[in-house]
Protein backbone atom coordinates (compact mmCIF):
# COMPACT_ATOMS: atom_id res chain seq x y z
CA UNK A 1 0.00 0.00 0.00
CA UNK A 2 1.27 3.45 -0.90
CA UNK A 3 0.98 6.38 1.49
CA UNK A 4 -1.91 8.80 1.20
CA UNK A 5 -1.68 12.40 0.05
CA UNK A 6 -1.97 13.56 3.65
CA UNK A 7 0.87 11.27 4.78
CA UNK A 8 3.10 12.47 1.95
CA UNK A 9 2.41 16.08 2.83
CA UNK A 10 3.11 15.55 6.53
CA UNK A 11 6.36 13.68 5.85
CA UNK A 12 7.55 16.32 3.39
CA UNK A 13 6.80 19.18 5.75
CA UNK A 14 8.88 17.50 8.45
CA UNK A 15 11.63 16.69 5.93
CA UNK A 16 11.83 20.36 4.96
CA UNK A 17 12.43 21.09 8.64
CA UNK A 18 15.33 18.59 8.64
CA UNK A 19 13.70 15.45 10.13
CA UNK A 20 15.80 12.62 8.68
CA UNK A 21 13.55 9.80 9.83
CA UNK A 22 10.53 11.31 8.10
CA UNK A 23 12.64 12.04 5.04
CA UNK A 24 13.74 8.43 4.80
CA UNK A 25 10.09 7.27 4.96
CA UNK A 26 9.12 9.92 2.44
CA UNK A 27 11.77 8.87 -0.07
CA UNK A 28 10.84 5.19 0.32
CA UNK A 29 7.16 5.99 -0.28
CA UNK A 30 8.01 8.28 -3.19
CA UNK A 31 10.10 5.56 -4.76
CA UNK A 32 7.14 3.19 -4.65
CA UNK A 33 4.79 5.83 -6.00
CA UNK A 34 7.17 6.74 -8.83
CA UNK A 35 7.67 3.11 -9.87
CA UNK A 36 3.92 2.80 -10.37
CA UNK A 37 3.75 6.20 -11.98
CA UNK A 38 6.36 5.35 -14.58
CA UNK A 39 5.25 1.73 -15.14
CA UNK A 40 4.50 1.15 -18.83
CA UNK A 41 5.56 4.69 -19.62
CA UNK A 42 9.29 4.12 -19.93
CA UNK A 43 11.43 1.27 -21.14
CA UNK A 44 11.80 -1.16 -18.19
CA UNK A 45 15.59 -0.94 -18.55
CA UNK A 46 15.44 2.78 -17.85
CA UNK A 47 13.01 2.83 -14.95
CA UNK A 48 15.59 2.46 -12.15
CA UNK A 49 17.63 5.36 -13.46
CA UNK A 50 14.55 7.50 -13.93
CA UNK A 51 13.22 6.85 -10.43
CA UNK A 52 16.63 7.66 -8.96
CA UNK A 53 17.01 10.82 -11.01
CA UNK A 54 13.56 11.94 -9.89
CA UNK A 55 14.39 11.31 -6.24
CA UNK A 56 17.60 13.31 -6.61
CA UNK A 57 15.59 16.14 -8.18
CA UNK A 58 13.11 15.95 -5.31
CA UNK A 59 16.07 16.27 -2.92
CA UNK A 60 17.67 19.20 -4.75
CA UNK A 61 14.40 21.05 -5.23
CA UNK A 62 12.72 20.27 -1.92
CA UNK A 63 12.43 23.96 -1.05
CA UNK A 64 10.12 24.43 -4.04
CA UNK A 65 7.35 22.46 -2.33
CA UNK A 66 4.79 24.68 -0.64
CA UNK A 67 3.49 22.86 2.48
CA UNK A 68 0.16 24.64 2.11
CA UNK A 69 -0.51 22.81 -1.16
CA UNK A 70 -1.04 19.13 -2.07
CA UNK A 71 2.14 17.06 -2.38
CA UNK A 72 1.38 14.63 -5.19
CA UNK A 73 0.74 17.26 -7.92
CA UNK A 74 4.17 18.70 -7.01
CA UNK A 75 5.85 15.30 -7.14
CA UNK A 76 4.04 14.53 -10.41
CA UNK A 77 5.28 17.78 -11.99
CA UNK A 78 8.86 16.86 -11.09
CA UNK A 79 8.20 13.30 -12.25
CA UNK A 80 6.86 14.44 -15.62
CA UNK A 81 9.77 16.85 -16.10
CA UNK A 82 12.33 14.08 -15.50
CA UNK A 83 10.30 11.61 -17.61
CA UNK A 84 10.33 13.88 -20.67
CA UNK A 85 14.03 14.51 -20.12
CA UNK A 86 14.58 10.78 -19.98
CA UNK A 87 12.53 10.16 -23.16
CA UNK A 88 14.75 12.62 -24.98
CA UNK A 89 17.84 10.63 -24.01
CA UNK A 90 16.50 7.18 -24.85
CA UNK A 91 17.19 5.92 -28.34
CA UNK A 92 16.95 2.20 -28.46
CA UNK A 93 17.02 -0.38 -25.72
CA UNK A 94 16.95 -4.10 -26.11
CA UNK A 95 13.88 -5.64 -24.56
CA UNK A 96 15.35 -8.16 -22.22
CA UNK A 97 13.00 -7.43 -19.34
CA UNK A 98 9.29 -7.84 -19.08
CA UNK A 99 7.07 -5.11 -17.72
CA UNK A 100 6.25 -5.64 -14.11
CA UNK A 101 2.59 -5.99 -13.41
CA UNK A 102 1.51 -3.01 -11.39
CA UNK A 103 -1.79 -3.03 -9.58
CA UNK A 104 -3.63 0.26 -9.43
CA UNK A 105 -3.53 1.97 -6.08
CA UNK A 106 -7.12 2.29 -4.91
CA UNK A 107 -6.35 5.14 -2.49
CA UNK A 108 -5.55 7.98 -4.77
CA UNK A 109 -7.21 7.11 -8.03
CA UNK A 110 -8.68 10.55 -8.61
CA UNK A 111 -5.41 12.35 -7.94
CA UNK A 112 -3.44 9.74 -9.89
CA UNK A 113 -5.69 10.14 -12.93
CA UNK A 114 -5.30 13.90 -12.90
CA UNK A 115 -1.51 13.84 -12.70
CA UNK A 116 -0.90 10.70 -14.79
CA UNK A 117 1.49 10.43 -17.71
CA UNK A 118 -1.30 8.85 -19.77
CA UNK A 119 -3.28 12.06 -19.47
CA UNK A 120 -0.29 14.05 -20.67
CA UNK A 121 0.22 11.79 -23.69
CA UNK A 122 -3.49 12.10 -24.51
CA UNK A 123 -3.07 15.83 -24.87
CA UNK A 124 -0.70 15.72 -27.84
CA UNK A 125 -1.80 14.71 -31.36
CA UNK A 126 -2.33 10.91 -31.60
CA UNK A 127 0.29 10.50 -34.34
CA UNK A 128 2.93 12.11 -32.14
CA UNK A 129 1.89 10.14 -29.05
CA UNK A 130 1.93 6.90 -31.06
CA UNK A 131 5.50 7.24 -32.30
CA UNK A 132 6.76 8.44 -28.91
CA UNK A 133 5.22 5.33 -27.35
CA UNK A 134 6.64 3.02 -29.99
CA UNK A 135 10.17 4.41 -30.19
CA UNK A 136 10.83 5.99 -26.81
CA UNK A 137 8.80 3.71 -24.55
CA UNK A 138 8.56 0.36 -26.31
CA UNK A 139 12.00 0.66 -27.85
CA UNK A 140 11.25 0.13 -31.55
CA UNK A 141 13.65 1.56 -34.11
CA UNK A 142 12.61 4.48 -36.31
CA UNK A 143 12.38 2.04 -39.24
CA UNK A 144 10.12 -0.35 -37.32
CA UNK A 145 7.90 2.48 -36.08
CA UNK A 146 7.67 3.78 -39.63
CA UNK A 147 6.55 0.37 -40.93
CA UNK A 148 4.05 -0.05 -38.12
CA UNK A 149 2.43 3.38 -38.38
CA UNK A 150 2.70 4.08 -42.10
CA UNK A 151 4.51 7.36 -41.34
CA UNK A 152 7.71 7.96 -43.28
CA UNK A 153 10.96 7.70 -41.29
CA UNK A 154 11.51 11.43 -41.38
CA UNK A 155 7.93 12.03 -40.28
CA UNK A 156 8.44 9.65 -37.33
CA UNK A 157 11.48 11.71 -36.28
CA UNK A 158 9.68 15.01 -36.73
CA UNK A 159 6.64 13.78 -34.81
CA UNK A 160 8.81 12.54 -31.93
CA UNK A 161 10.61 15.88 -31.79
CA UNK A 162 7.39 17.91 -31.93
CA UNK A 163 5.61 15.63 -29.48
CA UNK A 164 8.37 15.87 -26.88
CA UNK A 165 8.51 19.64 -27.30
CA UNK A 166 4.77 19.84 -26.79
CA UNK A 167 4.90 17.51 -23.78
CA UNK A 168 7.53 19.65 -22.12
CA UNK A 169 5.31 22.71 -22.43
CA UNK A 170 2.41 20.88 -20.74
CA UNK A 171 4.04 19.39 -17.65
CA UNK A 172 1.68 21.23 -15.31
CA UNK A 173 -1.47 20.55 -17.33
CA UNK A 174 -4.08 18.39 -15.64
Amino acid at each position, binding site marked *: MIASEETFRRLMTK*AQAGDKLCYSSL*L*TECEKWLRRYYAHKINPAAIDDLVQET*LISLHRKRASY*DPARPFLP*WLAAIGRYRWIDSLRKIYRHEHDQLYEEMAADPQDETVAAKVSLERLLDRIPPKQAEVISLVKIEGLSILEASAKTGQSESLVKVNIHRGLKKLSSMVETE
Partner: protein
Amino acid sequence: MMSDMMINRLVEDLTPVKPLKNRNGFALTLAVAAVVAVLVALLAGVRGDLLMGMPHPMFFLRGGALLLLGLTSSYAVIAMSQPAVGNSFKGWIWALAAALLFPATAAVMAMMTRPDDMAILVARYGVECLTVSMLAGLGIAAAQVLWLRRGAPVALERAGWLVGMSSGALGAAAYGLHCPFNSIFYIGLWYSLAVALCAIAGRLLVPRLIRW
Protein backbone atom coordinates in the same frame (compact mmCIF):
# COMPACT_ATOMS: atom_id res chain seq x y z
CA MET B 1 19.50 -2.43 -3.32
CA MET B 2 20.74 0.54 -5.35
CA SER B 3 17.77 2.73 -4.47
CA ASP B 4 18.15 2.05 -0.75
CA MET B 5 21.79 3.12 -0.87
CA MET B 6 20.85 6.26 -2.73
CA ILE B 7 18.01 7.03 -0.35
CA ASN B 8 20.43 6.66 2.58
CA ARG B 9 22.84 9.06 0.91
CA LEU B 10 20.09 11.62 0.31
CA VAL B 11 18.89 11.29 3.90
CA GLU B 12 22.45 11.82 5.16
CA ASP B 13 22.67 14.92 3.01
CA LEU B 14 19.41 16.40 4.35
CA THR B 15 19.57 19.89 5.78
CA PRO B 16 16.57 22.03 6.76
CA VAL B 17 15.25 24.28 4.00
CA LYS B 18 12.87 27.21 4.07
CA PRO B 19 10.07 26.63 1.57
CA LEU B 20 10.04 29.25 -1.18
CA LYS B 21 7.29 31.81 -0.81
CA ASN B 22 5.82 33.37 -3.91
CA ARG B 23 5.22 36.65 -2.13
CA ASN B 24 8.94 36.95 -1.30
CA GLY B 25 9.90 36.39 -4.94
CA PHE B 26 7.33 38.90 -6.08
CA ALA B 27 8.49 41.41 -3.48
CA LEU B 28 12.08 40.94 -4.68
CA THR B 29 11.00 41.67 -8.27
CA LEU B 30 9.11 44.78 -7.17
CA ALA B 31 12.05 46.00 -5.09
CA VAL B 32 14.48 45.61 -8.00
CA ALA B 33 12.00 47.31 -10.36
CA ALA B 34 11.67 50.22 -7.91
CA VAL B 35 15.46 50.59 -7.64
CA VAL B 36 15.75 50.51 -11.43
CA ALA B 37 13.03 53.19 -11.76
CA VAL B 38 14.82 55.44 -9.26
CA LEU B 39 18.11 54.96 -11.13
CA VAL B 40 16.46 55.89 -14.44
CA ALA B 41 14.93 58.99 -12.85
CA LEU B 42 18.24 60.03 -11.27
CA LEU B 43 20.51 59.31 -14.21
CA ALA B 44 18.30 60.23 -17.17
CA GLY B 45 16.01 62.74 -15.48
CA VAL B 46 12.24 62.87 -15.04
CA ARG B 47 10.02 64.12 -17.88
CA GLY B 48 9.08 67.78 -17.63
CA ASP B 49 5.30 67.54 -17.34
CA LEU B 50 5.67 65.10 -14.44
CA LEU B 51 8.07 67.47 -12.65
CA MET B 52 5.56 70.27 -13.06
CA GLY B 53 2.79 68.11 -11.62
CA MET B 54 0.76 68.14 -14.85
CA PRO B 55 1.47 64.82 -16.55
CA HIS B 56 -0.07 64.10 -19.94
CA PRO B 57 -2.81 61.40 -19.85
CA MET B 58 -0.68 59.24 -22.14
CA PHE B 59 1.92 58.97 -19.35
CA PHE B 60 -0.62 57.15 -17.18
CA LEU B 61 -2.07 55.05 -19.98
CA ARG B 62 1.33 53.86 -21.18
CA GLY B 63 2.75 53.37 -17.70
CA GLY B 64 -0.39 51.63 -16.50
CA ALA B 65 -0.48 49.18 -19.40
CA LEU B 66 3.22 48.38 -18.98
CA LEU B 67 2.91 47.98 -15.22
CA LEU B 68 -0.09 45.68 -15.53
CA LEU B 69 1.72 43.55 -18.08
CA GLY B 70 4.94 43.56 -16.06
CA LEU B 71 3.28 42.74 -12.75
CA THR B 72 0.96 39.98 -13.97
CA SER B 73 3.67 38.26 -15.97
CA SER B 74 6.19 38.68 -13.13
CA TYR B 75 3.76 36.93 -10.82
CA ALA B 76 3.46 34.09 -13.33
CA VAL B 77 7.28 33.83 -13.47
CA ILE B 78 7.62 33.68 -9.69
CA ALA B 79 4.80 31.13 -9.40
CA MET B 80 6.62 28.89 -11.88
CA SER B 81 9.31 28.28 -9.26
CA GLN B 82 6.84 26.02 -7.43
CA PRO B 83 5.63 23.45 -9.94
CA ALA B 84 2.48 21.35 -9.62
CA VAL B 85 0.26 19.54 -12.06
CA GLY B 86 -2.84 21.74 -12.27
CA ASN B 87 -1.01 25.09 -12.00
CA SER B 88 -2.26 27.75 -14.33
CA PHE B 89 -1.31 31.43 -14.38
CA LYS B 90 -2.96 33.10 -17.30
CA GLY B 91 -3.79 36.57 -15.96
CA TRP B 92 -0.93 38.04 -17.95
CA ILE B 93 -2.65 37.12 -21.23
CA TRP B 94 -5.32 39.78 -20.62
CA ALA B 95 -2.73 42.35 -19.64
CA LEU B 96 -0.83 41.55 -22.85
CA ALA B 97 -4.02 41.94 -24.88
CA ALA B 98 -4.58 45.36 -23.29
CA ALA B 99 -0.96 46.40 -23.94
CA LEU B 100 -1.25 45.31 -27.56
CA LEU B 101 -3.91 48.00 -28.02
CA PHE B 102 -1.03 50.50 -28.27
CA PRO B 103 0.74 49.02 -31.33
CA ALA B 104 -2.64 48.05 -32.81
CA THR B 105 -3.95 51.60 -32.48
CA ALA B 106 -0.71 52.97 -33.93
CA ALA B 107 -0.95 50.61 -36.90
CA VAL B 108 -4.58 51.50 -37.63
CA MET B 109 -3.93 55.23 -37.22
CA ALA B 110 -0.89 55.01 -39.49
CA MET B 111 -3.11 53.58 -42.20
CA MET B 112 -5.58 56.46 -41.84
CA THR B 113 -3.30 59.39 -41.22
CA ARG B 114 0.35 60.39 -41.46
CA PRO B 115 2.19 60.07 -38.12
CA ASP B 116 1.94 63.44 -36.37
CA ASP B 117 5.32 63.25 -34.76
CA MET B 118 8.30 62.53 -36.96
CA ALA B 119 10.36 61.70 -33.87
CA ILE B 120 9.33 58.11 -34.38
CA LEU B 121 11.62 58.03 -37.39
CA VAL B 122 14.60 59.49 -35.54
CA ALA B 123 16.51 56.41 -34.60
CA ARG B 124 18.47 58.23 -31.89
CA TYR B 125 15.42 58.57 -29.64
CA GLY B 126 14.14 55.11 -30.39
CA VAL B 127 17.49 53.49 -29.76
CA GLU B 128 17.76 55.33 -26.45
CA CYS B 129 14.30 54.04 -25.52
CA LEU B 130 15.30 50.49 -26.47
CA THR B 131 18.66 50.60 -24.72
CA VAL B 132 17.49 52.09 -21.44
CA SER B 133 14.36 49.88 -21.30
CA MET B 134 16.38 46.76 -21.99
CA LEU B 135 19.14 47.64 -19.52
CA ALA B 136 16.54 48.37 -16.86
CA GLY B 137 14.83 45.09 -17.74
CA LEU B 138 18.12 43.21 -17.43
CA GLY B 139 18.36 43.96 -13.70
CA ILE B 140 14.80 42.80 -13.13
CA ALA B 141 15.33 39.67 -15.25
CA ALA B 142 18.46 38.82 -13.24
CA ALA B 143 16.43 38.82 -10.01
CA GLN B 144 13.75 36.62 -11.59
CA VAL B 145 16.29 34.16 -12.97
CA LEU B 146 17.97 33.87 -9.57
CA TRP B 147 14.58 33.13 -8.02
CA LEU B 148 13.72 30.54 -10.65
CA ARG B 149 17.07 28.82 -10.10
CA ARG B 150 16.14 28.36 -6.46
CA GLY B 151 12.85 26.81 -7.53
CA ALA B 152 11.94 24.09 -10.01
CA PRO B 153 10.38 25.57 -13.15
CA VAL B 154 9.17 22.82 -15.47
CA ALA B 155 8.18 24.84 -18.58
CA LEU B 156 11.52 26.38 -19.45
CA GLU B 157 10.60 28.01 -22.75
CA ARG B 158 7.46 29.62 -21.34
CA ALA B 159 9.49 30.81 -18.36
CA GLY B 160 11.98 32.36 -20.81
CA TRP B 161 9.28 34.25 -22.72
CA LEU B 162 7.66 35.45 -19.50
CA VAL B 163 10.92 36.56 -17.85
CA GLY B 164 11.76 38.55 -20.99
CA MET B 165 8.31 40.06 -21.38
CA SER B 166 7.80 40.96 -17.74
CA SER B 167 11.25 42.43 -17.20
CA GLY B 168 11.01 44.29 -20.51
CA ALA B 169 7.61 45.73 -19.58
CA LEU B 170 8.78 46.82 -16.12
CA GLY B 171 12.02 48.21 -17.59
CA ALA B 172 10.03 50.17 -20.20
CA ALA B 173 7.68 51.42 -17.48
CA ALA B 174 10.75 52.70 -15.60
CA TYR B 175 12.04 54.41 -18.75
CA GLY B 176 8.59 55.96 -19.15
CA LEU B 177 9.42 58.23 -16.19
CA HIS B 178 11.99 59.94 -18.42
CA CYS B 179 10.58 59.51 -21.93
CA PRO B 180 9.00 62.81 -23.07
CA PHE B 181 7.06 61.42 -26.05
CA ASN B 182 3.30 61.00 -25.95
CA SER B 183 2.72 60.07 -29.58
CA ILE B 184 0.82 56.83 -30.06
CA PHE B 185 3.07 56.14 -33.06
CA TYR B 186 6.22 56.47 -30.99
CA ILE B 187 4.85 54.31 -28.17
CA GLY B 188 3.33 51.76 -30.54
CA LEU B 189 6.65 51.33 -32.31
CA TRP B 190 9.50 51.72 -29.83
CA TYR B 191 7.94 50.50 -26.62
CA SER B 192 6.44 47.47 -28.35
CA LEU B 193 9.82 46.77 -29.89
CA ALA B 194 11.55 47.03 -26.50
CA VAL B 195 9.17 44.54 -24.84
CA ALA B 196 9.23 42.20 -27.85
CA LEU B 197 13.05 42.18 -28.04
CA CYS B 198 13.28 41.48 -24.31
CA ALA B 199 10.81 38.61 -24.69
CA ILE B 200 12.85 37.12 -27.54
CA ALA B 201 16.09 37.54 -25.59
CA GLY B 202 14.42 35.87 -22.62
CA ARG B 203 13.27 32.93 -24.73
CA LEU B 204 16.78 32.49 -26.16
CA LEU B 205 18.84 32.96 -23.01
CA VAL B 206 16.78 32.11 -19.93
CA PRO B 207 16.00 28.38 -20.48
CA ARG B 208 19.68 27.45 -20.37
CA LEU B 209 20.13 29.43 -17.15
CA ILE B 210 17.26 27.75 -15.30
CA ARG B 211 17.51 24.17 -16.57
CA TRP B 212 17.84 21.61 -13.77
